């Protein structure tokens, strides 16, 4: 067989084998491709970061998702919580699905390990699971009084007595509601909380759902969004370079490759933990596979090109 034929007809089993390696190896050995941030993610980061160090501002994270979508959404949960704990941003967590309550617990305890000074009900407060049917009364009620609408936290304690609630009254004290879900729950927040009380809403979604939010982003009803693993990877990156170094966020800097690379050298060990790199590692595998497919296409075309030339010569 001629060389040009050979590279045009690589056995499919070989292709499959190489592809398998291309997926598995980056998951095992970190490559560390650079992540480039996009505007919706930057907007969300900046929005959350604006509440840093304030005791009268908080963010509300709604974990209305179930374990089925964890691979895509859990890195987001971790990244946002880490951002908040790193920058001293008060966090409320809530879920309208019973499975979501367990995910909140899991995420909180996983991030809290690295932040021993963060205290429950002082720096964050977990509202826990609230039945689906109470979603509207709670969404609307928080416009008036959070403590009254939510009543108790996950431990059954009355909210009004908790230290974190001392300066928190209603949506005016919520910088942004971040809805992390595989459904269109974010639109509920827009319809009820945003339209009525003007609170900012942002979403973290699975990649499949991500395309649906563009109209909302364009109309400004969502202040930002994280789309799938890619969005999570970008957020991880922003937390690394800005939150970890106490830097002021700026879009220009976030896009400046050299500057970001320089920041990367100075990051402490905590930023290198697997749990805070999950999404980026996943994206590495994805990038490698894309390049590999391109490589195969190019390879096939070289063979084709050589063939054509040979044929022309023969004529």
């Amino acid at each position: 067989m001629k060389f040009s034929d050979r590279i045009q007809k690589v056995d499919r089993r070989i292709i499959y084998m190489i592809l398998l390696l291309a997926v598995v190896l980056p998951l095992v050995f970190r490559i560390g491709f650079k992540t480039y941030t996009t505007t919706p993610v930057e907007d969300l980061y900046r929005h959350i970061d604006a509440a840093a160090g304030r005791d009268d501002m908080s963010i509300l994270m709604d974990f209305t998702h179930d374990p089925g979508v964890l691979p895509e959404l859990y890195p987001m949960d971790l990244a946002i919580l880490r951002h908040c704990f790193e920058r001293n941003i008060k966090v409320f967590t809530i879920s309208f699905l019973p499975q979501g309550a367990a995910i909140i617990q899991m995420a909180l305890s996983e991030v809290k390990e690295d932040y021993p000074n963060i205290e429950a009900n002082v720096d964050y407060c977990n509202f826990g699971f609230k039945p689906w049917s109470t979603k509207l009364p709670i969404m609307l009620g928080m416009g008036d009084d959070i403590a009254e609408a939510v009543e108790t936290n996950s431990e059954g304690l009355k909210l009004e007595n908790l230290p974190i609630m001392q300066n928190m009254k209603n949506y005016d004290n919520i910088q942004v509601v971040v809805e992390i879900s595989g459904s269109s729950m974010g639109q509920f927040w827009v319809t009820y909380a945003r339209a009525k009380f003007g609170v900012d809403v942002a979403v973290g979604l699975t990649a499949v759902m991500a395309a649906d939010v563009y109209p909302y982003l364009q109309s400004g009803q969502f202040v930002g969004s994280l789309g799938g693993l890619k969005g999570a990877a970008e957020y991880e990156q922003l937390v690394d370079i800005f939150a970890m170094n106490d830097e002021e966020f700026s879009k220009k800097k976030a896009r400046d490759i050299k500057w970001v690379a320089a920041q990367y050298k100075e990051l402490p060990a905590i930023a290198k933990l697997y749990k805070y790199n999950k999404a980026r590692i996943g994206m590495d595998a994805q990038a490698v596979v894309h390049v590999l497919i391109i490589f195969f296409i190019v390879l096939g075309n070289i063979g084709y090109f050589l063939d054509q030339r040979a044929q022309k010569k023969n004529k």
Partner: protein
Amino acid sequence: MKVCSKFGLLLLMFTLLLVSSAFGAIVPNNEAVEGLKVENVPHDDGGGLTLSWKPLPKEKRIIEYRIYRGYTPDSLFYIGRIPVDAKTGVAADTMKYVDQGWTFFVDATSRAKLKHEKGQKKGTKGAEVLFRTVPRDMKVYGPMMDHYRILVVIPDKEYMYHTKMREFTDIDSNEDGTVDTTSTILAGMKLEQLKYILTKLKVGKEYYYAIQALNMNRSVSPLSEIVSGKTTDDPPEKLKKFCAVAVSDKKQMQFEWSLPVFTDDQKQFNIYLYDEFDDQHLIFTRPDAYPYTPQTNAIVPYDSIAARFEAFNPANMKWYRFNIGEQDRKDQETLAKDEPIPAEIITSAILPKPPIHFTVKDQPNDKGDQLQVFFGYPYYGLSKLTYNDAFTKLTVNYFISENSMYEVTRLILTINGKTKTEYVLDNKLDFNVDWDYEMPMEIKGSFVCKHKGQEPLPEDYAITHTFSFDPEMQVVIIDYPPNEQMKEQMDYYYQVYKINHTSDVYRYAKELSFREREYVDKISYETVQFRGTPRFCLDEKRLYFSTYLSIVNYKDQYPFYTQAIYLDQLKQQDEEIRAEIAELQKELETTTDKQEIEKIENRIISYTDYIEDKPEIVKEANRLKSDKERMKMLYTAHCTNKRSFKYYIRKTDGQGHFIDTPIYTAPNGEQYIFPKQNWFNTDEIITLIAVLVFAALVFFMIKAARKGKRLYIRPIAGIQEIDNAIGRATEMGRPILFVPGLSGISDVATLAGLAILSKVAKKAAEYDTRILVPCRDFIVLPIAQEIVKEAHYEAGRPDTYDKNSVFFITQAQFAFVAGVNGIMIREKTATNFYMGMFWAESLLMTETGSATGAIQIAGTDAVNQLPFFITTCDYTLIGEELYAASAYLSKQPLILGTLKAQDYMKLLIVITVIIGTVLSTVHLTFFMNWFPAK
């Protein structure tokens, strides 16, 4: 192949082993739930108890907690469950279940017989006292009804026309030995006629609860301790807000308050005035609107205060103090404020201006269950402002609130002297304006509206927003600091109130923010009646309810004017009253005492009124002889009146500064507005025209084709190749595979695929080639079988038809693919057809097909799967070509005609698109607006 079957058996045994082992490896569920407590729900109507208990540890792998309730400790019925994630368990220390409000009790689909809950060990208490849900056996649920509050939900039609009248006579023996007999006529129905029955706990009664937990193996824990709790009707909770305002020039007081959490057993709100000497005077009561939300504010004119408190003097207003009390049905009252509050004394200049053009209209193009409530001029708000880093380019995201009176066609925005007109309202506009971000800036917006003969927008009507930059948050903040115009708007919101024609209290319909201009009120069709506390008759297996139906608010004296549903009952009633009147008249003749005479006369008048003074509709109905016709008339009146509403809007700041619009009166003078159903959806007019044009085109083209006119149709390679592909399979002596898509028969693509199948199968039969048709949908299966069978008959080869060649694989998407791929590999099919609807599995099939070296022809209208088909198949029918294929193959004039019509229709659409694009580009949007948005 023996190896193969042996391997299969081995695999199965292994599976069974796995299944059995997986179910033995969990910690035994042998501990009962502990710490069960039952507590009364505070401030409620005495119909709620809260259960709390300690969850079992995570290792127990519990998946749900089941709750049982009874009114004696020896029979507890299943009432609900709390599902738990087995892996994560419950993190909190306690779990809660609130048994409150109306919950499901029994209906015709409930289990037939009383059944013990299984799972509990024999001989334990749990095995004896636990029952599953309440059965539909009246012997069981009938006596239970005495121990709960009962609400029966009855479908209207059943209640109106299919009940059984029966008279019940009750005998009460008095203390003095005399006997009172009362007879009541009730309407009887069987359980199957009812929608369902609901229950609620009774006040002051003891209920027993127990809990058991279910683990992943579905084994239940031992029953927890049986714990009881008693419901109590507590006094209502304190209202959080109460404001009093005296508007001196309007000579009225305005009050505003908040609602409590529990409104179920609210009776009324009482407002008290405390005078200089701290004496309490009741000056106003507001009845509840149960089951709806009542008004939370009131206007009390000085005159009406003076009527209740004679010494009232507005000059002393500054000495007066006010308080509000919430009173429940047991007449327990709780005052909102510990110390009464003084009134804020203002003049009406401080009050907001009422919204203009308040209108209520029937919503067009609906099924008759919506009313439009709207008011005011259009509003635009800013949802987001984004500057670029250099502060030279601003992206404005805006939104528009409008109503059907002023439909906005253009928005004109001005920033810093730069004006831009938005012709297509897509909520986004870019400005090139420099900004020194330390200074706030202004956006002014004005509107161009569709003119519909109403008074035009005032020329100077514009809304100005202010925005500033927060360097700390790095974002543009809107309406901060607010300008005067916005300040005036932002503080207020609108409350829509409505009342129907069978009621006397306004109820709250909706709160609208200052940005909103329209509200569509959903007025659902009435399809059920609610009746409480039924009697039951075990022999007849019937439940009996009150026979009265509310008809209309009559002269405001009888807001809930009711009529008996049986004519006989009405006659009987009338006779009784007439007898009573006759008796009274006799009495009148013998009485001499003036006062007594007056009393009797009054009674006679009121009795006469009761039988004579009736709403016209009722009189008319009662004249009818047949019960059924009478009922029909009354029921129509009942439905119309219950669904006709009067509306008004209150603009308020929540602090007692509010103003009302007058009640809306339609141009025909009617105040009650009834939602009408529509018989044609005007939004679809363009669609209708398009359909008609298309149908006409089809008609003419078919006619032309029949006349023998030759219609040219573009050749499609994929279709032309079908014959060759079948021929190839014949030559190779291998079968053909035909997949008619994965979706069901309701998908047009499947039908198109099946149409192609009939052609392919016929050809295959002629050539005597086997055709395999795997199906995923079991409704498609028999149709495909029939098609292939007929094809063989037609080809004259009925003997070669094999029923097993068209078969069902599975419904599971990817399992189906696995099956199809297996067939391709084992049967070495020479030609594969994929015709119909495909999803993510498309490439999995075609790639395998291409690996086996088959010729593949695909056709689908799934746009996202087309690339996969094109890359892996030899020929692909793209979108409409799939639908055209059967026409090509049959070459019938009828079918060719439709194809040609399709082409002309497409031409028309393309012309329309081009016209629309050109016109919109030069800012002529009228053409675009003709077409519905959806």
